[in-house]
């Protein structure tokens, strides 16, 4: 625990002063010291302090609007959130340009100052001063970039939720939750559409069975609670709803057409079936016949072959007979 001796010191000064006055020592010095004004501040310090003050202004500004910027509870209130996206963008741009000018200014200041000749210790002191300034600027920039990171993350998450992935991983409860919030936000405009939506949503619910969803549901629950519905989001949701509604309608028509066509097809198919059955009988007969004829032909072939064989043998006998007759004639003629 440190003990403050400043008061004691000041009291000592007074005693020394009175003692000196009594002893009449250094009275002229006392007068001259009294007339020394406080020394004027050097230019370096004035400029450095200016820079620091500017950075502090930026920091205060960022901190003041931080709550509005992040706006964690905007979706719960019925009114539109306190800061539109345009304002946020403007804050971002302004802060960025300001930070850039600050760092430029520091750099220029630094090169200017370090060009001048000065004793070694003063130089190292000033270099350290610049380092500290830059570190301070970096800290304030970090504040800003944190805010911005939170905002960007929100936007990305919002987009992810609003995109409705194709497998329909959302559960019905999720949708109704969103609908409720949405209704609360835009109750005065969406009454009619809301009814439609709930109809179509029910049909959609029946058609889309939830997949194994518990962790996802938890995830979406968390995100929904974090999320706020800004007008941009509401608009996006409305558009989605319109689109869904139209899709549903067109789907219903198509389905009906398909139904009719399917009925016709079934009728025609019955006729086909009858005819086909009739043809079956005929075809059976033909098949039998064909089979028989093939067999006949086969037999016929056999006969013909036999006949050809016999024919060939017969011819051989005839030839032999004729040859014999001719030989006998020859013999008879030769011998007679």
């Amino acid at each position: 625990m440190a003990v403050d001796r400043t008061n004691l010191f000041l009291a000592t000064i007074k005693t020394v002063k009175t003692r000196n006055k009594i002893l009449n020592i250094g009275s002229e010095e006392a007068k001259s010291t009294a007339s020394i004004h406080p020394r004027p501040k050097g230019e370096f310090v004035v400029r450095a302090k200016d820079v620091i003050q500017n950075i502090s202004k930026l920091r205060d500004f960022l901190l003041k609007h931080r709550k509005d910027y992040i706006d964690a509870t905007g979706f719960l209130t019925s009114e539109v959130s306190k800061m539109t996206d345009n304002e946020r963008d403007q804050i971002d741009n302004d802060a960025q340009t300001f930070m850039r000018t600050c760092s430029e200014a520091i750099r220029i200041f630094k090169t200017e100052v370090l060009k001048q000749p000065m004793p070694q210790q003063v130089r190292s002191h000033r270099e350290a001063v610049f380092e500290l300034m830059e570190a301070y600027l970096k800290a304030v920039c970090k504040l800003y970039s944190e805010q911005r990171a939170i905002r960007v993350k929100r936007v990305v998450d919002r987009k992810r939720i609003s995109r409705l992935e194709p497998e329909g991983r959302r559960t019905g409860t999720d949708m109704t939750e969103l609908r409720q919030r949405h209704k609360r936000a835009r109750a005065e405009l969406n009454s009619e559409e809301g009814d439609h939506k709930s109809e179509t949503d029910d049909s959609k619910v029946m058609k889309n069975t939830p997949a194994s969803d518990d962790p996802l549901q938890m995830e979406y629950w968390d995100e929904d609670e974090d999320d706020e519905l800004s007008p941009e989001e509401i608009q996006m949701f409305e558009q989605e709803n319109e689109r869904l509604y139209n899709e549903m309608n067109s789907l219903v028509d198509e389905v009906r057409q398909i139904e009719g066509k399917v009925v016709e097809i079934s009728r025609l198919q019955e006729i086909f079936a009858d005819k086909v059955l009739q043809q079956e009988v005929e075809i059976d007969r033909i098949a039998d016949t064909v089979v028989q004829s093939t067999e006949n032909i086969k037999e016929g072939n056999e006969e013909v072959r036999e006949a050809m064989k016999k024919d060939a043998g017969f011819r051989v006998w005839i030839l032999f007979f004729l040859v014999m007759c001719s030989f006998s004639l020859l013999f008879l003629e030769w011998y007679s």
Partner: protein
Amino acid sequence: MRTIMAASLREKQTAALKRMLNLNQEPSRSSAVEPVWKVLVYDRFGQDIISPILSVPELRDMGVTLHLLLHSDRDPIPDVPAVYFVMPSEENVQRICQDLRNQLYESYYLNFISAVSRQRLEDLASAALQAGTVPQISKVFDQYLNFITLEDDMFTLRHSQNREAISYYAINRGDVQDSEMEASMDAIVDSLFSVFVTLGTVPIIRSPRGNAAEMVAEKLDKKLRENIRDSRNSLFTSDSLQAGQFSFQRPLLVILDRNLDLATPLHHTWTYQALAHDVLDLQLNRVSVEEPAGEKSPQGARPKRKAKSYDLNFTDKFWQSHKGSPFPEVAEAVQRELEEYRSQEDEVKRLKSVMGLEGEDEGAISMLSDNTAKLTSAVSSLPELLEKKRLIDMHTNIASALLDHIKVRKLDVYFEMEEKMMSKQSLDKSLMDMFSDPEAGSPEDKMRLFIIYFICSAQTMSDAEIDQYAVALQAANCDLAPLHYIKRWKAFTKMTAAPSQYGGGGTKTISMFSRLMNTGSEFVMEGVKNLVVKKHNLPVTRVADALIDNKSYQDTEDYRYFDPKMLRVTDSSIPRNRNPVQEAIVFIVGSGNYIEYQNLVDYVKGKSGGSIKRITYGCSELSNAMLFLKQLAKLGSELH
């Protein structure tokens, strides 16, 4: 569940320093605070106090642009406040007056390390008046930070300045004058007083009778008593106590004299921190290691060895967990850390390649966000990994340097022998062999071994034996002066009980081969015994244990008891306050060492179920065996 422990001495000192650097205001906790530039001027003692606690980057964070020694040439730096942190000695005050006359800085915040006297204040006042700079002196503070904190629970009083005034030599000299003795005692008491002001509590003091410790205890008691009675300026008012410190939980201060135990400072060490102090000369948590440079220079000259200095402080987790472990364990632990680091590095590299492959897959957005999360975590953990690598490298270097020394000087053999002596086991190798072996260690090592043998031998050695050993020692180039002093010391104190105080120790040698097979360690510790030290209590620890638990132990029965809050000074040995002691401070008048510190830390850990939560170890100076041996040599040579 234990209650929250009160802040340690180091934390309190750091808080006080930070408040001082913030121009004596509480440092604010908001983010991105405007920097206020200042110049820090200190003397050598201030430097010793600040350097183990605040590093240069931390000083920078607090806005200190320049830090300079008081007695150096300083250029005028306009428009900047200057924070002075100096002892209120005559020459320092003169130099400050000179600065005021030269008008070096814009405003002056004078912080005196201990209380400044009226005379000096008047000198300052007249100088300020003469120079006309009275409005520039913004604040004058007495910081009461007259001690150097090295660890959370270890402090010492002097390091580089005025060390000799309160060393063992100065107090135990044969021809010490009364006035010098008074001056040394006053210096010690002043510092102890600052310790308690910083802690914010009034202790109960116990000390033995009849030596320097008793003098210190009496003076401290008187000083605390005066301060408490002076209700206007008391430093121990209740608003300085923070919540969680009840006024009936008072710490116990045990003041002991170095003469209680002369063997431990000379003992060869085996734990990491103690080895670093003994072999590599750990000063103010900084070690300097000689590193051989890479290849030899082309001319074949000797490779230049550059000395690298490393900081070993409380931010280094490896050091904090292993500074008390025996050396082989440290080697293994470094190996383990290295492997862990390598596996983490590989993971980061793998993540890099995984990211490259999956970055084009647009459909899997959730996977991408997972990867980005992994990437951000990898990026944020990279600086940690690099820091870890740096620490591992540092510890590897330090451990290798230690290992080299151990191998060269055969310190493990010495350690084993000394442990055996202290526990009165029989020795494998006789002392004569050790002394005549030219390779085993430096002459100082042999001297230390012999002195320990002499102190611990139960039966008094005959003069003939002593002379025999003396001849052998002289053949080994040892200086025999300490021996004379020890002889006289032993005769004086008649500590025949002393050897038994070391009992219960001892070592076991574990075969190194099994370890080598298992770990394949980089540290080729063949030839170095892997000694496991059994737990035992050094004399200091035993005394502390007895006093803390109010056990009756033959040596401490006669200890004096001081309670500064009691109205009358009594000369009793009977403790009036029998509450269980939660916190204790053990202070050695003379030189302290890391071995005792480590022993106390182990003792507290061993008693984790008991009442004692923290023991802080303090000494008037921290000296390793070499320095202590030199002091003994001086004392011995003066005897003749």
